[in-house]
């Protein structure tokens, strides 16, 4: 299940929802990403998340589908917020439910790593001194690439 939204989400409720989707689910692994308070040395006022509306949903569904085809997992929930977010707010949730915990760990990490290099979101950091688009990180590319050889 994919959700794109401006509003915040309730991590505990999502984890319970994942678990309640099947009677043999014993494990839920989740990742939550937050807006940091500082970027380098500067205090952030906010971030703004732009995305490509016609493509985003499809792109995240494709990532979830690939995770399900590669690992023995039951459900995936991806929630990504868009718009303006202030420090400490939640940005993204990836939750995976499975009867096998190691598969849930791999699938969850795969989804967030792949999202970071494939899903059409762009972050702008807003400082009191002006705005700045965030540069893509080389480390994200290598984390994502690592799943290709598996």
């Amino acid at each position, binding site marked *: 299940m994919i959700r794109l939204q401006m509003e915040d989400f309730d991590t505990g409720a999502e984890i319970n929802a994942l678990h309640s989707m099947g009677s043999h689910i014993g494990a839920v692994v989740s990742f939550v990403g937050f807006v940091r308070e500082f970027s380098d040395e500067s205090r952030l006022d906010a971030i703004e998340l732009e995305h*490509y509306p016609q493509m985003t949903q499809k792109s995240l569904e494709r990532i979830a589908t690939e995770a399900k085809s590669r690992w023995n997992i039951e459900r995936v929930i991806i929630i990504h917020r868009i718009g303006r977010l202030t420090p400490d707010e939640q940005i993204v949730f990836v939750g995976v439910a499975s009867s096998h915990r190691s598969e849930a760990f791999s699938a969850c990490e795969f989804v967030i790593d792949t999202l970071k290099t494939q899903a059409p979101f762009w972050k702008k950091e807003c400082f009191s001194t002006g705005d700045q688009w965030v*540069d*893509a990180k080389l480390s994200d*590319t290598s984390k994502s690439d690592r799943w290709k050889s598996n």
Partner: protein
Amino acid sequence: MRIKVCYFARLREKLGISDEIIDLPDNCGNISSVRAVLQKRDEIWQQAFASDQSVLSALNHEMVTSDHQLEAGDELAFFPPVTGG
């Protein structure tokens, strides 16, 4: 042939446009050719598309490489490397 082209994030701001319809010669070919056409517009466009790595492409909402062929009615998008999550 006619396609839609969209621009996002830093690229959208630099070029001052979010989307446009452009007419291409029928045998214009692939995405690289469109980039070449756009680069001829002016210095800003030339620079914006100068590096292959700093501009990614999506064709009809799928990430693709620049050698992908285009068809009439396609939606082509250019954007910087993504930074969500």
